Structures are given as C-alpha cells and as structure tokens.
C-alpha cells in the first residue's frame, strides 16, 4: 500500500500533469469565488477539454479545479455574507461578522489555512482507512441514512440562537419547504399551486442566496456603510498572519472537523450541503466558551472550512470504489472516469490503487496550492470590505441573481430568491434563526426518502433495532440534551444572546409565527387528501410545526404586551418596532428588487440588470451619473461576455426579445442586448 501511495504521488509530478494541475487550481479559485458556480459547474465546463487527454492529466485538471472551489468559496461568504456554494453556507455565520468588525483579512487567512489543513487531513484520514472503508460505507443503508439525517437536524438546537422553539419551528418550515413538488413515492404534486416551476422541488441555491445574501445586502444599502463597519481593516499583513495563527492554534478542532468532513463525504447523499452546519454545531458544542459564536468567533469559521475541503476526498471514495456518486460533482467525475477507460469498482483499490491515491493526493495538494495562491491575494481582496456599501450592493446583487439563475434558467428561481430575501429579512429582524430552514430544506428529502424506503423494506419500524441506528439515536439524544443544556445555562446566567437570531422585536416576530401557524395548519389540512405515502411526511411536519408556532405566538404576544406596557401606547410601540426593523427603508429596497424582476420579464436581463444598477447607484447611492453609467456598462459586459458567451447561459426570453427578434435585420447583433 505504501508503494501505491508513493507511486500515486509520482504520477502527479510529471511536467504536463503539473501544468494542468496549476490551470485547474486557477480556474477553480476563480469559479469558487462567484456565487452559485461551485465545483460541479467548473467540472462541466472543463470536462470537454479532457476528452483527448490521458487520464492522469485529465484528472489533474478536473480534481484541482473541483478542490480549489471549496477553498475560494469562503471569499464571498466572509466578505459579503453571500455563500457562493452550498458547502460554504455555515462560513457566513462567523466569517461575515468578522469582516464587519474590520477583520476580513484575518477571517480569510484563517479560512484558507483551515481549508488547506482540511484538505490534507481529509486525504490522510482516507489514505489510512481506505482498505477498511468499504464495509463502513456499505453498512449505511436507508435506516442509517435516516438517522444520520436526523442527527444533522438535531444540530438545529445549536443553530437556534436564544429560542429552541423558534429554531425547531424554523426547521419544520424548512422540512415543509422540502416537501414541495413531486414526491419520490408517487406522482402527486404537493404544494405546487399548479405551477410547473414548483413541480421540481424548491431549488437550494436561490433559497440560500435569498435567505442569507439579500438581508445582508439590504443592511448595507440601508445603513450606507462599508462592510467593515469600522471603516478600517485589520492591517495589511497582521490580520492575515493572525488568521493563519488562529488555524494552527485551534489545530485540534480543525483536524476533528476535517475527519468529520471526510467521513460525511464518504456517505453518498448527505455531502456538502450539511457538512458545514454539522461541523459548525460540533465546534459550538465542543468549545468551552461559545458566547461569541455568531458574532465573529474564528472557530465558527475554521470548522466548516476545514470540513468542506476534507469532504472532497471523502466523496471520491464511493465514486471510485463502488461506482456510487454521492453528488452532482462526483457524478460528473464518474462520467469522466468511464470516459477515460477507468472502471469504477474494486479494481480501483487493487490494480488501480496508485491511480486512486494520485486522485487523493491531487485533492490534498490542490487545497494547499489554492490556499497559498489565495493567501497571496488576501490583502487586496480584503479591501472590498472597505468599499462604500452603496457601490457594493448592486454589483453583488447581479452575482446573487445570476447565481440563482444558473441552476434552472427560470424566472421562478429569481422569484424564489427575492421571496426568500423578504422572508430572510423578516426572520432576521424578528429574531428567527435562518440556518435551521436551510439545513432542514436540504435534509427533508433525504429524511422522507430513507424513512419510507426503510419502512417499505422492513414492513414496519423493525429497522429501528439495527445496531448503528441505535448508536446514532443515542448520539442524537446526547446532541439535543447538550444543546438544550447550553441554552438553559445561558438563560440562567443571564447572558445576552448575540449573532444569528439575537434580535428581539416581538412586533415583527409575532406576524411570522402567526403566518407559520396558518401555513402549517393549511398544509396539514391539504395533505389529508393525499394517499398515505404522499401525506405521511407533511403530516409529521405540520403537526409539531403548528404546535411550536403556537408556543412562539404566545411568547411573542406576552413580549409584545410587555413592550407596550413599557412604551405606553400601541402607536409608540409599533412605530418603534417598525423603526428597529427598518421597515420604511426595506420596502423601497424590495420594490427595487421586484421592479428589476418585472423589468426582466419585459426587456430581459441584459437590459434590466444594468439599468437597475444605474438607477440604484444614482438614486439610492447618490453617485454621479458618470459613475453609474460606467458601473452599468461593466455589469452589462459581465452578463454578455461571461454569463452569455463563456457560460452559454439561456437568458430569459423577454417580451421584447420575442417581439424584436423576428423583425430585426440579420446584421443587428441582438445577442448583445436580448
């Protein structure tokens, strides 16, 4: 085995392989930093170029780009509060508050270093366990996957902020969202309101970008400040070095999270979307003082960043050895394997073992190379945090909305993004935690599927007696107990919660809980008409969801009455609540966003987005028209030359395009604006 390990490393150190490796790293770094892109899209773009290459060179290009995206994915999470990929969701929670505090360079330094360590540790963990790993993977059938999903959901307790009830109700809302569309059991649409768009389930990326990015951008727009609220950065080299030191100082946490990431990656189906949350919750539960989590605790950043890099190596193992791809990225890689004459299967652990090890090496080295490249650029990149907010907002909105567009090329994705932007804003202002919604949205489908398959196969709940299921059940109970104890302790100690879900505004929270109650009751009532396999999961969600919403309603009401008593009159109380929630400023902002979507329907993205940017910069940002025009032209160039020509995206066929295209003379280059 050691020989195969060395031979695998030797395969990489060939001149032409190194060239492709470097190219892949650069492309991966660039793609990872664009919201919505992620590793899979990079693989799709690069795959055709590998057709004529020999296998090691081809995989050097593909794997280095795939691994590098998760390292650079932290850039927008930290600097803008915008998770660029599903894997970097949890990075936002502490990374962005650090940037706000003027510690962008430190945060980036820490996250890149943690990524590198994660990549190496993950690869090492796999290298060590490779000969023993197959029985472990095969032991995880549907019952175990269900329990693992439940364990992920139990992490909600650590992501709930001050109120467990709100956290669990938010998770129930996320689970309910996961039931939208056609279930796997039968072609009966659930909660689609007759729309085609929702038949396919609610897509993760538009919801994620809406829920997290838009409220942060709105805050920037309303407060009219730079991302670094202090207006100062943490100094050129010092912040960066502090970040690197943070990663090494917390080496044990980083190693633990890397190993968790690598092993979660190995289990097909769970993957990138939950690993960040699971390791974040693990970090929060396992450190002595977690009072700063959510406000910019560097450990909340180190954990998910280590894990999402380690995950890549883990995900490769079932793909190579069993031909089971656990994600879109690994499915593409498996296609590439077959294309290059490699047959996924046991031979990858015997005759092709050096090749398998070369792949693991590639991922580990790519994480280190990407980190070194990114560390070189941190001081320049971190300056984004000092730009005036009004200049940052429209440009980032362009990337957010185009990121939402990438997956489905549907105006429904934009509406989802905008609607969840509104929901995210009100949740944030009302002290409702947003991470449980996303975590549950990701896990909902896995939970329903694995529960129903388990029940079908075992013809009842007999699967609950399986040894791993019992073990995972005990872990879940411990996790919930620890989370509940943490919240209770904080309350007893009179600690004022901060970070996510820390805002106290019962006048905003109450309508949310009322709406949630109505939604749960309506959804449960609607589900009663469906056959058992279709209604089972919605009913399991809506009953506790409605009860928890009711509890929150009662609490919110009590808080609201107490506030009213303190303020004197309802008029003063509600005006104060509205001011605290920035409702007056939020409405025009959302009008801009929905106006942009409306305009897109009429004239298409290539006109609507630049126009939106120009109008925003002049009217909201109060910049000169010349600056607005230059900004709009830049945005238009990105749309036309990057998204259209390079990415070959299908843009929305606007009414203008439908009317104009048939009548335009052939000499007119309509692709520039339609």
């Amino acid at each position: 085995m050691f020989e195969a390990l060395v031979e695998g490393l030797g395969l990489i150190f060939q001149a032409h392989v190194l060239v492709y490796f470097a190219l892949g790293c650069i492309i991966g770094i660039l793609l990872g930093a664009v919201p919505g892109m992620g590793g899979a899209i990079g693989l799709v773009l690069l795959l055709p170029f590998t057709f004529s290459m020999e296998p090691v060179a081809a995989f050097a290009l593909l794997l280095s780009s795939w691994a590098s995206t998760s390292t650079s994915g932290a850039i927008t999470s930290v600097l803008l509060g915008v998770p660029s990929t599903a894997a970097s969701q949890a990075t936002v929670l502490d990374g962005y508050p650090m940037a706000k505090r003027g510690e962008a360079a430190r945060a980036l330094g820490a996250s890149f270093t943690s990524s590198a360590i994660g990549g190496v540790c993950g690869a090492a963990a796999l290298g060590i366990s490779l000969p023993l790993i197959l029985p472990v993977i095969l032991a995880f059938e549907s019952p175990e996957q269900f329990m693992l999903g439940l364990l992920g959901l139990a992490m909600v307790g650590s992501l709930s902020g001050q109120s467990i009830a709100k956290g669990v109700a938010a998770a129930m809302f996320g689970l309910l969202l996961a039931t939208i569309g056609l279930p796997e059991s039968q072609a009966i649409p659930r909660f689609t309101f007759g729309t085609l768009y929702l038949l396919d389930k609610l897509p993760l990326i538009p919801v994620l970008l809406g829920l997290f990015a838009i409220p942060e951008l709105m805050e920037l727009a309303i407060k009219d400040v730079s991302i670094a609220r202090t207006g100062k950065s943490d100094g050129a080299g010092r912040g960066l070095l502090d970040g690197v030191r943070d990663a090494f100082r917390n080496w044990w946490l980083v190693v633990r999270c890397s190993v968790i990431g690598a092993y979660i990656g190995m289990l097909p189906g769970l993957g990138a979307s939950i690993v960040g949350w699971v390791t974040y919750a693990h970090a929060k539960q396992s450190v002595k003082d977690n009072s700063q989590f959510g406000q910019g605790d560097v450990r909340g950043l180190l954990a998910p960043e280590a894990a999402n890099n380690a995950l890549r190596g883990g995900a490769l193992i079932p793909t190579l050895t069993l031909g089971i791809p656990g994600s879109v990225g690994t499915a593409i890689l498996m296609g590439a394997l077959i294309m290059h004459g490699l047959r996924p299967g046991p031979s990858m652990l015997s005759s092709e073992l050096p090749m398998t090890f070369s792949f693991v090496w590639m991922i580990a080295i790519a994480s280190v190379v990407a980190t070194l490249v990114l560390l070189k650029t941190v001081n320049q990149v971190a300056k984004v945090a000092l730009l005036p907010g009004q200049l940052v907002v429209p440009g980032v909105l362009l990337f957010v909305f185009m990121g939402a567009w990438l997956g489905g090329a549907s105006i429904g994705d934009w509406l989802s993004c905008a609607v969840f932007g509104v929901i995210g804003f009100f949740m944030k202002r009302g002290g409702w935690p947003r991470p449980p919604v996303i975590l549950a949205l990701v896990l909902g489908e896995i939970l329903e599927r694995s529960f129903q398959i388990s029940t079908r196969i075992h013809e009842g709940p007999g699967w609950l007696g399986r040894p791993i299921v019992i073990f995972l059940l005990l872990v879940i109970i411990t996790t919930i107990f620890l989370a509940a104890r943490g919240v209770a302790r904080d309350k007893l100690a009179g600690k004022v919660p901060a970070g996510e879900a820390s805002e106290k505004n019962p006048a905003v929270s109450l309508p949310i809980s009322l709406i949630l109650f109505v939604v749960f009751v309506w959804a449960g009532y609607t589900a009663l008409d469906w056959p058992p396999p279709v209604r089972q999961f919605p009913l399991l969600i809506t009953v506790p969801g409605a009860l928890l919403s009711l509890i929150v309603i009662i609490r919110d009401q009590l808080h609201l009455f107490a506030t009213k008593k303190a303020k004197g009159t309802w008029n003063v109380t509600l005006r104060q609540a509205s001011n605290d929630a920035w409702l007056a400023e939020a409405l025009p902002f959302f009008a801009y966003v929905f106006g942009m979507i409306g305009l897109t329907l009429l004239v298409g993205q290539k006109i609507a987005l630049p126009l939106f940017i120009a109008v925003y910069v002049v009217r909201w940002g109060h910049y000169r028209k010349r600056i607005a025009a230059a900004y709009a032209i830049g945005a238009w160039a990105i749309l036309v030359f990057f998204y259209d020509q390079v990415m070959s995206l299908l843009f929305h066929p606007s009414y203008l395009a439908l009317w104009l295209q048939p009548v335009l003379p052939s000499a007119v280059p309509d692709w520039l604006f339609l």
Partner: protein
Amino acid sequence: MLNAAIRNTGRLLALMVSVLLVSCDAGENSRDSASGDGPHSFAGETITVVIGLDASAGGTTVGRLLAKHLEENLAGNPTVIVNNMPGASGLNAHLHVLLRAPDDGTTVYYGPRSSLGELLELPGFSFKYSQFTPLGGVQIGGLVVYARTDAVPGGFSKPQDLVATEALRFGGMPPEHGRMIVSSMGLDLLGANYKYISGYPSSGNIRAAIISGEVNAATDAAHAYLSQVVPVLVDEGHALPIFSMPMQNDDGELIQNAMVPDVPSLPKVYESIYGEAPSGVVWDSIETLLELDQTMQHVFLGPPRMDSAAAETFRVGLEKAMASAAFHEEAQHILSYVPGFIGHERQAKILGATADVAPEVLEHIKAHIEKNSRY
C-alpha cells in the same frame, strides 16, 4: 510527454479563445434567413439546442456531442450552442420551444421526453408531443434487469431460478417512471414474486442499495449496466443479469439488444421457463411501453410551425451527423456506446402512438402503477 502537454495546453487555451471568438461571431448571425427558394442553409446562423436536463447529466453529454457534430453536418455549418433548461423535469424546456422558439429552426429542443407522461396525464403535461415538429430521435440503449446472486435461497445462477424466490426486493424510482414500469412488468410476466421498493431518486442510488444488499433486484440502462454494474457486481460474482429488454427495429419488430448480446431478452427467458412465446395483457403492455417509451429515449423537437425547409435541412443534417464515422468514434470514446438514430417519420409515429393505446393496456399500466405505489 512534454510535447503532448504543451500541445494539449495550447489546444485548451485555443479552444477557450475560440469559444469566445466564435460566440462573438455569433452576433453577426440572424434568425431570419428563412427558407425562400431552393435548399435551406443555416449558413451564418446560430442554432440553440435547449436541453431539458441539467448541465451535469449524462444526457447533456450526448446532447453536446450531437451539437458538435451537427455543426459539421448541417447545411451551411451553423454555430450550434447548447443551453440547459432543466426546470420542472425538463418540461420548462419543452414549453420554451413549444411557445417561444422562433419558427426558423434556430431554437430546438433536445433531451428526454415522456410519452408516458402524456398518456397518463401526469402533472405538468399540458401539451401533446404531436404539437411539435419532429426532427429526429436518439436511441440511448435498452434496459437490463439484474439481481443479486443471494436473492434466491441457495444461490441464483440462472434467470429461471427467479420464479422460485419469494424474497425479491426490486429497487426503483417513482412507480410512474417508464423504465421502472416496463422492467417490473417484465418480472410480472416471468411470474417473479417481488416487492417494489420505490423512492430511490436515481439509478446511482439504486446501484448503491444493490451493492449494500438493501434491495436485490434492479434495472439499468444497458450502457450503465456494462460500465457500472458489471465491474462492481457481476465480475465480483455478486449479481447476474435476469433479462434484457428487447429493442424495436425500424419495422417495429422486437430484436435482441446488441449492446448486451449475452444477456437473453425477456421473450427468450419467458420461453425458456414456460415453453411458449409470451402473450396476454402483460406482454401487450410491455410491447406498448417498448414502443412508446423505450425505443427513442431522447428527441430533437422543433416548434409547431417550424419552417418546413429548415426542418428538412435539420433532419438531413442530424442523420448525416449520427451516421458519420467521426461521431461513432467520438461517441464510443466519450460515452462508451454509440447512440442510435431514429428518423423523423418513425419519431412522429412513436410520438403519436399514445393515441392508439388499447384501453385494456392503459388500464393495466395504471393498475400496475397503483400496485407498485402501495405503501
């Protein structure tokens, strides 16, 4: 080696630049070089192939490969670009071409289609396939149903053993999925006693369940069976094929799937067990499904009022492309199989066949789905 690296790097960069330049050049093109007199040419035009799958799907790779060879074989050598529109399981892409594509043939649909969805009036099927202009179909390959060797007490060594077992757990996607219906009907025909375990979202998940032993029978596309089931399961002695689904030739006759010549077809297995050719409503339903759903997995579709000369030019170009040695060579290398060509007339016949389904067959298909949906 270094020379090869430099050559490949150069090619990669040149391709990247050419993507930009060619795309920029596309701006010079128009959509209104309509038919007029004489043979139609797509010279100077850009054809957009809207694929109803996401960019990472295997079908997109087939579509991209076809797009590349269409460029070389369509009259006028137009630029052919591929756009993915996977929303609503590809239905958005169907509707995009049906309702919004220009009539000049510069926007066409490529990807899977579900005549079964139309037949069973599944959610979202607000259109009929006969509304589109048929441009040609693509045969991706038939199906192979296989089982774990430990599915039968005492071991499973030949398809006939199946009848003896009572412990067959067939792992499948939603019971309305065409591939699942026809495969599980095949088991019905053979008299196998199986339980349909629905809920797996993809073939990859089903393979995982087969490997772990959670289920012990499944179906897969023949090319996936060869590349992913054989090395992991069959070669290791963990699984055996039960039967392959026959394919329909251009005359509508059932023939052995050439991709898996050693796997006996369903009628042959039936004959070996029962000593006669299959018949009855189950077999009629299978035959209907083979025609409706399994002969032509992917299609090129034009908008309803597509310019007839442009449509003809496209059909000729597609046939030429799929018959070319360059396409065969590249498909074999990239896909590990060569997709078959279905002419537009046969395509139209298949698309229109939903109207001719016998009532008892339709009833049987619905009852079969109902049976497999039981929880």
